[in-house]
């Protein structure tokens, strides 16, 4: 895997990191025979474990109930995701049948060993957190979750000690917290500054960049991995810009479509570990995974990308 360094402190490292990212990507360019360069990864700050920079979300897209046809389509998306080198799949008890559908897909695919299972606890009672996590685990049919996050900070004061105890007992490998759409950022910062967590999950994209000011630098300073949700504003961002042609200079960072343009902007931030776009389409998951290959933009290119999208 092509692993990008994860700086722990200082904006000064930014250019060095981006240069390193570009350099390492160039070491494994796509060959003329169509062989792909290795997938881009970032180390999880607390352990150094390599994580492909594009994961798979399940919000709305995997909540298909008992519809067998739709479940099979979701399994096909997961197959395409793993085939392209993906690891992290993220879900929540809040997402309706998504957990069951992921379990269905994993069973159909023979439980790929490269899976990194990211779940959440979402219940107002701290005492019932363990039971909910166990129920989720049975849906997924996995021996344990790699990551359990406190969803939208619900009862985080009660859940984080439970998750810490589970981590100490080897029942979960990483713990984290989540928010979305820019909510409760002050609380997120306070928890990041005071609690021992491995991951924070936030919304971030080329237009919604508030987290660049405080949360992303704090994550780097504290050695906390960052998972990015809602990269496409639930599809609205793609729909808004799709009618415009991709700028020719997007080829410099090996973007073939807008999805890759948006995702590469996100994962090129040195604090970001992984982005988790959701989709029901195999073609789209392949497009998304394309953002985990090839060159990433440097800081100057990132500014150009943001300015370009803002003008559209």
């Amino acid at each position, binding site marked *: 895997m092509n692993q990008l360094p994860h700086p722990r402190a200082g904006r000064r490292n930014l250019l060095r990191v981006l240069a390193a990212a570009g350099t390492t990507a160039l070491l494994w360019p796509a060959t003329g025979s169509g062989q792909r360069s290795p997938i881009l990864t970032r180390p999880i700050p607390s352990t150094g474990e390599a994580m492909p920079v594009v994961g798979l979300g399940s919000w*709305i*897209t995997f*909540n*298909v*109930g*008992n*519809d067998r046809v*739709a479940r099979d389509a979701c399994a096909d998306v997961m197959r395409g995701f793993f085939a392209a080198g993906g690891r992290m799949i993220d879900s929540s008890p*809040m*997402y*309706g*049948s998504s957990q069951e559908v992921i379990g269905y897909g994993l069973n159909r695919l023979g439980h790929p060993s490269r899976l990194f299972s990211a779940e959440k606890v979402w219940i107002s009672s701290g005492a019932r957190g363990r039971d909910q996590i166990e129920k989720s685990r049975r849906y997924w049919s996995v021996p344990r979750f790699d990551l359990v996050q406190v969803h939208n900070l619900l009862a985080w004061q009660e859940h984080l000690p439970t998750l810490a105890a589970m981590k100490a007992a080897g029942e979960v490998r990483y713990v984290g917290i989540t928010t979305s*759409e*820019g*909510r*409760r950022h002050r609380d997120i910062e306070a928890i990041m500054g005071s609690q021992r967590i491995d991951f924070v999950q936030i919304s971030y994209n080329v237009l919604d960049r508030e987290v660049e000011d405080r949360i992303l630098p704090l994550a780097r300073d504290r050695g906390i991995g960052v998972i990015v949700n809602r990269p496409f504003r*639930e599809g609205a961002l793609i729909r808004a810009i799709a009618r415009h042609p991709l700028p020719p200079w997007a080829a410099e960072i090996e973007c073939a479509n807008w999805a890759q343009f948006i995702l590469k902007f996100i994962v090129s931030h040195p604090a970001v570990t992984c982005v988790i776009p959701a989709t*029901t389409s195999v073609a789209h998951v392949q497009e998304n995974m394309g953002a985990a290959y090839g060159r990433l933009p440097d800081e100057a290119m990132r500014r150009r990308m943001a300015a370009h999208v803002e003008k559209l």
Partner: protein
Amino acid sequence: MSEWWTYTLQDFLLFSPRTYYRLFELYNRDLWPAQILALGAGVAILLLLRRGGAGPERAIPTILAGGWLWVAWGFHFQRYATINWAATYFAAAFAAEALLLIWTGVVRGRLAFGAAGSAIGRSGLGFVLFALVVQPLIGPLAGRDWVQAETFGVAPDPTVLATLGILLLATNRVHWGLLSIPVAWCVVTGATLWAMGSPDAPVMPLAALLCLILAVRKTRLPRGKGTS
């Protein structure tokens, strides 16, 4: 919920429109041809209203309660709850409405029906006809597949709308207790369809609003003059 002002209706939508309407499609396929029987029950309500007399007072709420109970179990609890955890609460509310209809109309005999002669009565009849005839056509007219059509006694919206009409047709008084759950559902379903961008989203909230206006007018009429 903190920072509640930052939430939009879309934030509460757990599923895609495709999944929602596929739910109706699979439900209809599983039940077919029960939809015809349910529509027959709706036509029976119209015939009972036309016949008048003492019989309809208990038969009509019995038919309606059967529809509400089935939708609670067959739709909300068995199907909708697979994609929306809130549907278990909807199932409980629909079952509660069924029990209220049985208690008020069947056990206590408090629902009386006469000829739909007044404007309010004709409006009530219009609600019932709309639920039976027009509502199944809305989906196909909006571009959805026929097999996703929503019919009285099977799907929630036409069952709720027919109930609003029947309650407007009741001659003795306005039954606010019986109106509250149907009106609340109109808000819920309107919000859901609105969040999905469905063109028919305003239908149920507007129906509820019209029903409430007519119900208020009915309270100002002398008892027994509401529909005849």
